[in-house]
């Protein structure tokens, strides 16, 4: 047992920039916590002096407290027994102390091992005086044995011994340890850094610095107090929990919204995580590695006093690391969490973290998230509201280093949801066009993927049984995400876009100040995200078509949208439809009744009706509505290239003329369309972060692909004209009859747009 932590710390030392005392954890922690001076490079003598000082202080403290202990303290607040009893599930502060003491013990063991190893050097001679008891070696041994038995640290001769070996032959670590444990060095025995006699003193100071944060930001004591913090109205631990969720929402908003839907408040599990710094989630060895990293991050506030920030706890690298580690833990069990449908099971899974996680991955991810957390904490001066802050400061493409490559999105204001719906619906429209030309290859791929994923979707259909509409949507989201991810692999050219596009889409939504009544903006987030992911793929493994349920009912807009997407998919791939229907047919009714997401607009309605028409193969019933969707198709195209704009977006917000360009182009596009009212606010584009170099290429590529798509569609139209099939050919129904004329007109407009783009 002793060897493995040594290995861990040794490998730590090799992989990271060399830390001082990397194999003496207690010393390193003491430096990191601020007990010992860290100003580089503090000499051994300085360290010894500080150590001696702290020990004297502790001795005084203890004497004072013990003597005064018996005097009754009437003003003492009675401890809250609901928290403080032995059976309480709440973690206590003593659990923070335990690893500190362990580490001190461990280092002592290590010291004795080293001493055993280098026995010749750790001699007990003083000033070259050798004691006349037999030859050198045996006298050493006898004395050593005696010393060990008495439990006192081995005395060491600093001024070198009669031995022929010179101290310089030792490796630097051992040499340091020699100096540290030399009881004839500075401050004598009181200065010996690794001392069993003073373990209590050392442990106390480590604990004190941990609890009070050493004038830094994160003080564990504040996590235990129910008193509200100075900057917010919340107790610090609650604030830290919400900081955690905030970071999660930046990084992985689908998981965040899933948890929020289930009403899993962060403090339900975060309380235990934060109060003992994950002491209950990991085995001791893993915990030591985590605390290494945690203490290594400094606790000092790095923001000036006048800079506004979101969360107090994120103001220091250490606090940010804590939040980042919590988020990376959440991401580690992401699929497990998304599979749960009640808060209870979700919490159960959270509170029983897997036994042997991949620590390296966790910590690396935490470190990368730490940077993000620190940056996201800063408010920009122009924002007031929480959500606005998120949009401005967080909008960047951030790809997680972890295996689950879920793109991050930002929180949206309530009004954004309308646009998300629009985008999703329109994009399905676009997909229809792409497919209707007979993309046999792509559909083949999709079929393959779908069959692969069918088992997945089947297992995930169980949650559909729940009466919770949110669970439904969350599972559906997940299906979207997973299937989308699979398809992304298949379609390389859209891969990067899909990763980036959710960012942009949210930026799109951000700018639109459309007032909307929203039941649940968070689900909309995820809907958007999944839409975007699947947008280019049009593989929707989710809700079945329910054409008969669709009425002119605004309440069911979202449902229709999803049905729309489904039907569009089904247009091209009958097999797909049958598979989907088979796996979700019975859930259909439930979903239609449970779905209560607020309405979108006419577009949705019309599109849904179009979908209805296509899926049921009845074109004549709503021929006039086909015209409207046709108008929307150009929008879909525009949105598509708006997305592709965002492909190159990275770190900085750039409200620049590039976005103005984009807005300009879009404006032209809008003028072309008829439904201009709904897209009045082009403010979206202001928020689109576009990489400087890439935007031109992006635009050109957009134009190019648009042109290709237009050509494809036109060929389809040609085909249709040539062989208009009266039979139910689902894939072509929508293009029959009157619709064709308007479709062609729309295509012409699209052509114009694409040429514009290509000229850029």
């Amino acid at each position, binding site marked *: 047992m002793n060897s493995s932590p040594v290995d861990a710390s040794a490998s730590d030392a090799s992989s990271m920039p060399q830390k001082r005392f990397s194999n003496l954890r207690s010393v390193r922690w003491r430096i990191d916590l601020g007990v010992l001076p860290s100003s580089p490079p503090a000499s051994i003598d300085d360290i010894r002096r500080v150590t001696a000082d702290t020990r004297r202080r502790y001795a005084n403290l203890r004497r004072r407290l013990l003597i005064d202990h018996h005097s009754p303290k009437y003003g003492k607040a009675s401890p809250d*027994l*609901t928290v403080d*009893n*032995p059976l*309480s*599930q709440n973690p206590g502060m003593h659990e923070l102390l335990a690893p500190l003491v362990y580490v001190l013990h461990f280092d002592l063991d290590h010291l004795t091992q080293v001493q055993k190893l280098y026995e010749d050097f750790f001699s007990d001679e003083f000033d070259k005086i050798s004691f006349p008891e037999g030859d050198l070696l045996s006298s050493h041994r006898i004395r050593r044995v005696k010393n060990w038995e008495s439990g006192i640290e081995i005395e060491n001769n600093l001024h070198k011994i009669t031995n022929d070996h010179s101290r310089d032959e030792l490796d630097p670590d051992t040499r340091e340890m020699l100096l540290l444990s030399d009881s004839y060095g500075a401050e004598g025995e009181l200065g010996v850094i690794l001392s069993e006699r003073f373990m209590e003193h050392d442990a106390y100071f480590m604990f004190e610095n941990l609890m009070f944060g050493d004038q830094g930001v994160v003080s564990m004591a504040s996590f235990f107090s129910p008193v509200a913090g100075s900057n917010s109205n919340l107790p610090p631990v609650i604030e830290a929990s919400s900081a955690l969720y905030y970071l999660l929402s930046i990084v992985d908003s689908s998981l965040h919204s899933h948890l929020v839907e289930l009403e899993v408040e962060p403090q339900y599990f975060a309380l235990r995580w934060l109060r003992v710094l994950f002491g209950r989630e990991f085995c001791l060895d893993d915990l030591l590695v985590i605390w290494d990293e945690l203490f290594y991050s400094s606790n000092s506030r790095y923001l000036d006093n006048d800079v506004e920030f979101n969360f107090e706890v994120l103001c220091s690298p250490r606090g940010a690391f804590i939040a980042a580690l919590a988020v990376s833990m959440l991401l580690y069990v992401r699929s497990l969490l998304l599979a749960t449908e009640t808060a209870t099971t979700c919490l159960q899974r959270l509170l029983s973290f897997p036994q042997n996680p991949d620590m390296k991955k966790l910590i690396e991810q935490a470190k990368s998230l730490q940077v993000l957390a620190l940056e996201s904490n800063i408010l920009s001066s122009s924002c007031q509201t929480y959500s606005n802050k998120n949009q401005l400061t967080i909008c960047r493409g951030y790809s997680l280093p972890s295996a689950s490559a879920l793109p991050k999105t930002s929180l949206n204001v309530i009004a954004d949801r309308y646009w998300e719906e629009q985008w999703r619906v329109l994009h399905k429209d676009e997909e229809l066009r792409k497919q209707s030309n007979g993309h046999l290859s792509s559909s083949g791929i999709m079929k393959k993927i779908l069959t692969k994923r069918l088992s997945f979707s089947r297992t995930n259909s169980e949650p559909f049984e729940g009466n919770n509409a949110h669970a439904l949507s969350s599972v559906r989201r997940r299906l979207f995400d997973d299937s989308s991810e699979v398809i992304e692999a298949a379609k390389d050219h859209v891969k990067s876009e899909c990763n980036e596009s959710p960012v942009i889409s949210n930026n799109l939504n951000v700018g639109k100040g459309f007032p909307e009544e929203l039941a649940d903006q968070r689900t909309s987030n995820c809907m958007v995200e999944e839409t975007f992911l699947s947008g280019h793929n049009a593989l929707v493994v989710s809700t079945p078509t329910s054409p008969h349920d669709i009425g002119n009912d605004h309440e069911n807009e979202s449902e229709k949208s999803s049905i729309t997407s489904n039907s569009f998919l089904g247009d091209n791939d009958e097999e797909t439809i049958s598979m989907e229907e088979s796996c979700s047919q019975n859930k259909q009714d439930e979903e239609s009744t449970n779905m209560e997401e607020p309405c979108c607009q006419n577009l949705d309605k019309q599109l849904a009706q179009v979908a209805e028409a296509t899926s049921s193969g009845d074109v004549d019933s709503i021929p006039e509505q086909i015209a409207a969707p046709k108008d929307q198709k150009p929008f879909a195209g525009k949105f598509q290239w708006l997305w592709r704009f965002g492909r190159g977006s990275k770190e900085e917000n750039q409200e620049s003329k590039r976005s103005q360009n984009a807005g300009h182009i879009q404006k032209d596009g809008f003028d072309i369309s008829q439904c201009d009212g709904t897209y009045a606010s082009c403010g979206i584009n202001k928020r689109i972060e576009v990489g400087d170099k890439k935007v031109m290429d992006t635009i050109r590529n957009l134009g190019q692909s648009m042109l290709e798509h237009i050509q494809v569609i036109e060929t389809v139209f040609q085909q249709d004209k040539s062989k208009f099939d009266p039979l139910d050919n689902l894939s072509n129904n929508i293009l029959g009859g009157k619709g064709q004329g308007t479709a062609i007109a729309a295509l012409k407009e699209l052509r114009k747009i694409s040429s514009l783009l290509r000229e850029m």
Partner: protein
Amino acid sequence: MVLVLAIGDLHIPHRAPDLPAKFKSMLVPGKIQHILCTGNLCIKEVHDYLKSLCPDLHIARGEYDEDARYPENKTLTIGQFKLGLCHGHQIIPWGDLDSLAMLQRQLDVDILVTGHTHQFKAYKHEAGVVINPGSATGAYSSITYDVNPSFVLMDIDGLRVVVYVYELIDGEVKVDKIDFKKTANTQSAH
């Protein structure tokens, strides 16, 4: 820090279906070192459940227990303390301190744990402690219908025992604490 759970008078399944959920969530295996059960479980399933919480289980026979093999009285030593266990229906008048003290002297124990009245009580007298953990399920008794579910957890630490009593009042678990210190070991009577 030795945790000893004193629990009893559950009367499952006759008078109560199960322990309250909040109690169940607190009683997790692995935390408690000993269980002293005053009796009236009444069925084997409850015995098995308590056994799963802690392997060191001591039960005294209550009048409704279906297992007739439980003893009437039991004594054991934990740390510096001698504990005695009895159901309490044998002590007449029920719940009377003097009679219970007689039993305590008889068994020669420092801490006597009895039940039967379904009321939580903790008396300190003559360098001894008498504890009644009440009914863990809140089952009615022959004396009263209005019973709050309760149980007792003793934290034995050297010469000091801290008695935590957990009561379920209006759906909330309320905890209270009583401290007892044992004077230095006196010679036993015989």
